[in-house]
């Protein structure tokens, strides 16, 4: 399949980048002109694997993906969750060998952008290069926050923190509102992401439901008590560095 510009696909990237920075009209047009190859993927399908040397980056257009690392005996650590607008393997532009895997969690549609086109774009548009750099730095900030959660938050606080983070990220790209958001993530996925067991996740969710903090059904999360979730997890959204904008 050959590469061609796809405005619909690039709109997701533009929406994501505009949630963390300002884009000029020229920048927007340049991004829209990037040639891409669209692929539809099944759920739980690898996009790139640990050790691969990809020649393109993957932009998520629909569905969820996760970065993960597998150890012996099937031990999996999910490193981050990714939603439309994310380019989870952007690092492959500058770090040539993958040190983790990227796979879909749900059925997904992705746009592969050849490295040479991305390099050309960043060379000709330093503003875009800066924003992609900013995105990578925010990615690192999210890892730092996950580290704090992993080391110092209780299971309850940890799950609460993740829910707050996911809600805000989804809201920033227009995929959530009114304290409702999609959450097509199994308890095993949550366990692997938070360094907990599915049993602990189950118990925490039960406790949260019992306290009417959340409703979680059919892959939809409803946060019934936003302020309480923020308080319990000591959530400070600074690390997401989301641009404030008038809600539309």
């Amino acid at each position, binding site marked *: 399949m050959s590469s061609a510009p796809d405005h619909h696909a690039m709109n997701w990237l533009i929406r994501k980048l505009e949630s963390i920075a300002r884009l000029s009209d020229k920048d927007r047009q340049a991004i829209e002109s990037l040639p891409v190859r669209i692929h539809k993927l099944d759920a739980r399908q690898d996009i790139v694997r640990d050790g691969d040397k990809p020649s393109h980056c993957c932009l998520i257009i629909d569905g969820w993906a996760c970065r993960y690392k597998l150890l012996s005996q099937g031990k999996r650590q999910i490193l981050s969750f990714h939603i439309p607008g994310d380019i989870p393997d952007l690092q492959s532009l500058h770090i040539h060998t993958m040190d983790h895997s990227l796979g879909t969690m749900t059925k997904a549609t992705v746009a592969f952008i050849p490295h040479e086109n991305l390099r050309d774009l960043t060379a000709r548009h330093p503003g875009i290069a800066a924003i992609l750099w900013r995105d990578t730095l925010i990615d690192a900030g999210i890892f730092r926050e996950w580290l704090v959660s992993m080391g110092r938050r209780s299971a309850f606080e940890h799950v609460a923190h993740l829910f707050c983070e996911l809600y805000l990220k989804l809201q920033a790209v227009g995929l959530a509102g009114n304290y409702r958001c999609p959450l097509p993530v199994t308890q095993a996925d949550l366990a692997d992401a938070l360094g907990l*067991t599915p049993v602990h996740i*189950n*118990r925490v969710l039960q*406790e949260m439901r019992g306290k009417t903090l959340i409703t979680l059904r059919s892959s939809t999360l409803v946060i019934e008590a936003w302020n309480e979730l923020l308080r319990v997890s000591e959530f400070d959204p600074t690390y997401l560095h989301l641009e404030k904008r008038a809600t539309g």
Partner: protein
Amino acid sequence: MTLRLQPVRVATDSYDIDGQLVFADGFPAAVLVKLSAYHEDMAGMWFLEAGFGWVDTPNRPTFADLDTAQAWIEQQLADAA
């Protein structure tokens, strides 16, 4: 090495309270808890609620029955020797 089980109720702060204290050569080596109906497909399975020393692994397995659980605990202790 001999394992001995002692029924015990565990304050897990959840519905899962029926447990077994597992002694290895007289020393408490693990606490197993039976998962309640709340856990749906895992209901009735035994969960490694706590482990000591070589039984204290980051990954907490669930077991179909107590025999499987004890076999696993024995393996952990044997690997340590």
